[in-house]
Structures are given as structure tokens and as C-alpha cells.
């Protein structure tokens, strides 16, 4: 098991290098120098100052050398400082140690995605299983229709509709931000409810699409498993149907789902750009969008790299989960 994990970790290194390579070259192959945004907006800048700035970011050296230097810095998690007016260190903007944990950008994005995952799993598995055991029933058809609509639903539009209904029309839920203006004066319970109520819509929207995909997948995986001989055997030896389904079939049907969950990480993380922009949530996705709009290239490169690393981490966790769940794989190691 440990040997396998080490092997997996070693395999991640070239992919990790590839991620940094792509993040770097997307920015550096674009026409114009990355520092243009700093120099062009400033009419008073002298050629010497411009040169100094280019030297500071090593732009006077060949691209490959620049990449090497950048790589050397990011190994220490130093992504340089942001081009935005506050000129803070990139890492500090994503993970601000001065703020409480709950307000750090990376934490906010991770938290929303983790809650989403949990909700997807809690709901998608029972839906998938019951659709499979009641194949072609009215319930199954209803679920299939919902799934198809879920696939086709543009998340930002769904967000708009729900904001309009629950936020504007009913006035039940806040439609933007992560906490209310009067958050600081609220009592503890009020604070908790305030944060939770701001999260309800975003989490629901982000879970909806994944819910459709995963419950569909669970259904087909379950359909395949309940036709297997060992399920027939379990039934033949007189086990109650509940036990057959939830103990014998479900365990096997869950295996492919673990892989799918690992694969859905990049989609969710990428989707946080849209979600956080629509709801005005100060997370990593919103920061990425703002950085892209202002061409804050150290920030963009940093978030691209972190996004890739999070996906790798997700895949690794999925592999470990797979190994823990499937004795056949454990035995092979």
C-alpha cells in the first residue's frame, strides 16, 4: 500500500511540471510583455524604469530561463507579488493569514466545493440506487428527465432564477456575498445562520449539476451490478432484498463512482469562477476572474497552478478511496 502510494506520488511529478509549464507559457506566449499593464497605464514611466521593471521580473532573459527561475520560486510557494494596486504577495491574497480562516479565499472555495461534494454523495447515491431498483417506473422516468434537464441547465441562469425567486420575490435568502453587513454585531447563533443562509443558494446550484451526473452514473452502475451472478446468489440463499441491494450490490456499484468523483474535481473548481462571480462570493474563483480581467499575471499563473494541483490531489484521494474500497486492488499490490 505504501509502495503504491509512493509510486503514485512519483507519477504526479511530471504532471505537476506540465501544469506549471502550461500555466507559464499561456501567459508568456501571449503578445506583449506581462509588465505592459504596469508600464502602459503610467504615462510618466521612463525607459529606464521600464527596463528595471523588466529586469525585476526577469523578462530580459530567454523564456526557458524565466520558466526555470519561476519554477525555483514556486517550489517554495512564492508566486511573487500581485500587479494589482495593493501589490500584496500572491499567496497572501489567496491565503491571508491575518484574516480568520473562514474569510480566506482558498478556504472559501474549498469549503463550498467540499460541502457540495458531501451533498452530492448523500443525495445522488440513494437516487441512483432507487432508480435502478425501480427501473422504468414513473419515479425512474421522472428522475431521468430531471437528470437531462440538470445536464443542460446553465448554472448561472439557474442561479439567476433562484436569486429572483428566493432573494427578490420571497426575500428569504440573501443573494450575494458571504455574510451580511451587520455580521460583526450578530450573536453567535446569528453569525452561524448568517453564513449558512448565504451559502444555501450557491451550494444548491453547484450541487445540482453534479447531482444529475452522479445519480445517472450510479443508476447505470447499479443496473450492471444487480445483473451479476453474485447478486442472484445472494437472493437465492434467501437474503432480504434490502440486504442484497445495500450490502452486496451497492458496495460494488460504488467503485466506479469513486473514479467519477475524482474526475469531476476540475469541473467544480472551474465552475467556482462562475458561481462566485454570480453570487459575489470572495473566493479563489472570483479572484481569478478579477485577475484575468486586470491581466494580473502572477496571480493568474498562481491560481492556474493551484487549480491543477487541487485536481491532482482529488485524483490521488479518489485512487486511495478506490484502493480502500476494493479488496481486489489491495491484494494486487
Amino acid at each position, binding site marked *: 500500500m505504501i509502495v503504491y502510494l509512493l509510486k503514485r506520488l512519483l507519477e504526479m511529478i511530471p504532471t505537476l511540471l506540465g501544469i506549471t509549464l502550461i500555466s507559464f507559457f499561456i501567459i508568456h506566449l501571449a503578445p506583449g510583455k506581462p509588465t505592459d499593464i504596469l508600464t502602459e497605464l503610467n504615462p510618466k514611466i521612463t525607459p529606464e524604469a521600464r527596463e528595471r521593471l523588466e529586469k525585476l521580473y526577469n523578462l530580459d532573459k530567454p523564456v526557458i530561463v524565466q520558466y526555470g527561475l519561476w519554477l525555483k520560486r514556486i517550489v517554495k510557494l512564492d508566486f511573487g507579488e500581485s500587479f494589482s494596486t495593493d501589490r500584496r504577495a500572491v499567496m497572501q491574497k489567496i491565503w491571508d493569514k491575518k484574516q480568520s480562516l473562514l474569510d480566506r479565499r482558498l478556504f472559501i472555495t474549498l469549503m463550498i466545493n467540499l460541502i457540495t461534494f458531501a451533498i452530492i454523495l448523500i443525495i445522488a447515491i440513494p437516487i441512483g440506487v432507487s432508480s435502478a431498483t425501480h427501473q422504468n417506473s414513473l419515479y425512474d422516468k421522472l428522475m431521468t428527465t430531471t437528470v437531462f434537464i440538470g445536464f443542460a441547465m446553465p448554472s448561472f*441562469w439557474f442561479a439567476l*432564477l433562484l436569486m429572483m425567486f428566493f432573494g427578490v420575490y420571497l426575500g428569504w435568502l440573501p443573494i450575494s456575498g458571504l455574510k451580511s453587513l451587520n455580521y460583526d454585531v450578530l450573536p453567535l447563533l446569528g453569525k452561524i445562520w448568517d453564513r449558512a443562509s448565504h451559502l444555501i443558494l450557491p451550494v444548491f446550484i453547484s450541487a445540482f449539476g453534479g447531482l444529475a451526473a452522479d445519480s445517472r452514473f450510479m443508476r447505470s452502475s447499479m443496473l450492471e451490478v444487480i445483473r451479476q451472478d453474485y447478486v442472484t446468489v445472494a437472493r437465492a440463499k434467501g437474503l432480504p432484498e434490502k440486504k442484497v441491494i445495500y450490502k452486496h450490490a451497492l458496495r460494488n456499484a460504488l467503485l466506479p463512482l469513486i473514479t467519477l468523483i475524482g474526475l469531476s474535481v476540475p469541473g467544480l473548481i472551474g465552475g467556482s469562477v462562475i458561481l462566485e462571480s454570480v453570487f459575489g462570493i470572495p473566493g479563489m474563483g472570483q479572484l481569478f476572474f478579477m485577475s484575468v480581467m486586470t491581466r494580473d499575471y502572477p496571480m493568474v499563473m498562481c491560481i492556474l497552478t493551484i487549480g491543477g494541483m487541487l485536481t491532482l490531489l482529488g485524483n490521488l484521494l479518489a485512487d486511495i478511496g478506490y484502493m480502500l474500497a476494493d479488496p481486489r486492488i489491495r491484494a494486487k499490490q
Partner: protein
Amino acid sequence: MKGHSLRNVFWRRFRKNRLAAAGGVVVVLMFFVAVFASFISSYNPDDIDRKHILESPSLKHPLGTDDLGRDVLSRMILGSRISLSVGFVSVGIATFIGIFLGAISGYYGGWVDSIIMRFIDIMLTIPTFFLILAVIAFIDPNIWSSSAIPYWIRESLRVILIDPNIMNIMIVIGLTSWMGVARLVRAEVLSLKEREFVLAARALGTGDMNIIFRHIMINSMAPVFVSAVLGIAGAVLVESALSFLGIGVQPPAPSWGNILTLGKDNIEIAWWLSVFPGLAILITVLSYNLVGEGLRDALDPRLWDVEI
């Protein structure tokens, strides 16, 4: 009784799937709306009417007017052309790259295969939407209206696409969505390349490229076609999200996504700006998905029942 040729079986299966057939009808209708957009709409989509801004749906303006008094229905009709062309062209680009890299990877194997597959893994690791956003922001937004592009290309792009710079979005979506096709094609090529008909072609001295594209690819087009149809749905979604965020199709060129941006800005007063464009996206994407799934089932011989 009709014959049992493959084509007949395919059509009967596809039509029997009522949802897929309904999706097909919508797809065809949408296609004609997009092509004949300017003949169908009753208003000029760019006509500003300051006396009638943000009017709710009425007989005169069935889907209301926007913040500049433009007719929303007319803008959505023209927007359908933009959204669908982005879908078609970007999927075309993705399919082309995917077939090429997938076929080479599967046919040659060895280090070529390792490099291409590793590259695909890396591309799939970076969240796609991040990648698209970064590329779009860092390429020159006006490259397609610059004088470096021949006049006739610029002009024809302007006539078809309204705003030539939409080409950027197509290319970027295409460049970031070919990985699935490549994997699919690679798997197909791997399973076909040892078959007798390929061996026969090789024995006759046919060149590699000829074998790959004229013998192998012809026999594995069905799954590629299905994934292209599903890909159009995905590309329409991505385009609308980009336009919604303000980095896709730029106003005054209309797109379903950028009408929705107006909907968000006027969320408390103009529900029609939010509801109808989104509905159009939903129906389009749903239809392409249904057609794609229907094609997949109809083309899959394992699902061909005896009774058909």
C-alpha cells in the same frame, strides 16, 4: 416490409426514441432560425428605442425590451446564430485536433503515444474553465478585425458572425475541448489497427496516413460523431457562460449569454431579460444532448433488439 439494411435499422431505432426525435426537430428548427435570422425577426436587433426601455412582454414585443429599448426576441434570434456558430466551429476544431492526435497516438504507440497521452492528462488536470478564461484574456481581442486579415475574410466573418472577434472564442473553446475526442479515437484505432482489413491495406503497400485516415477512421466515425453532437451542447453552454461573465461575445453583438447579463443587472425589475435567454440555452443544450444520446443508442449494435 422495409429491408434490414444498417441505415434502415438505424433510422427506425432513432425515430422510435421519441425524446431524441423531438430533440432532432428542435435542432433542425433552431438551425433554420439561425440561418434566416434577419428574415424572421420583426425588428432590427440593434434599433435603440429610448421611449420603450425595459418594457415587459406585450403583443408588440413578445419577449419585452431591454435597457436600451431593443426588442429582446429579435436579439435572441440573432443571438441563436452566434451561439450555434460558436458551438459548431469550436466543436469542428476540437474534433479535428482530437482525431489527428488520437489517431497518431493510437496507431504509432510507443513514445509518441506516451507524450500525447501525458499531454492530455495535463490538459485535463487544469480546470477547463480556468484555462479558457486565461487564454481569452491574454490574446488580442481585436485580432480578427485588424488589417492583417484579408478584407474578404473580415467582411464575410462580419456578415455571418456579426462580430468577427467571436472567432477568438471559437478557437479557444476548440483548443481546450479536444481531449475527449482524442482519447475516444485512440481507443478506436487501437482496437482496429490489428484487424485483417488494415493488415491487407498494409500488405498492399498503403502509406500510414492513408491507412489511418481512409481505412481506420472511416470505420470509427460513429462514436466521434456522437461526441461531436454532445460537444456542441457543451460549447453552447461554455459560450453563454463566457458571454454572461462579459468576456465572450461583446455587445452590441447579441448572444444569449450577454442578454442574461442585462437580466442580472436588472434582476429586480425585468424578469423577462433573465428568463427567456436562459430558456433558449436550456432548450438548445437539452435538444443536442437528447439527439446525441439517441444517436449513441441507435448506433450501438449491442442495444439492437431482435424485434426491430
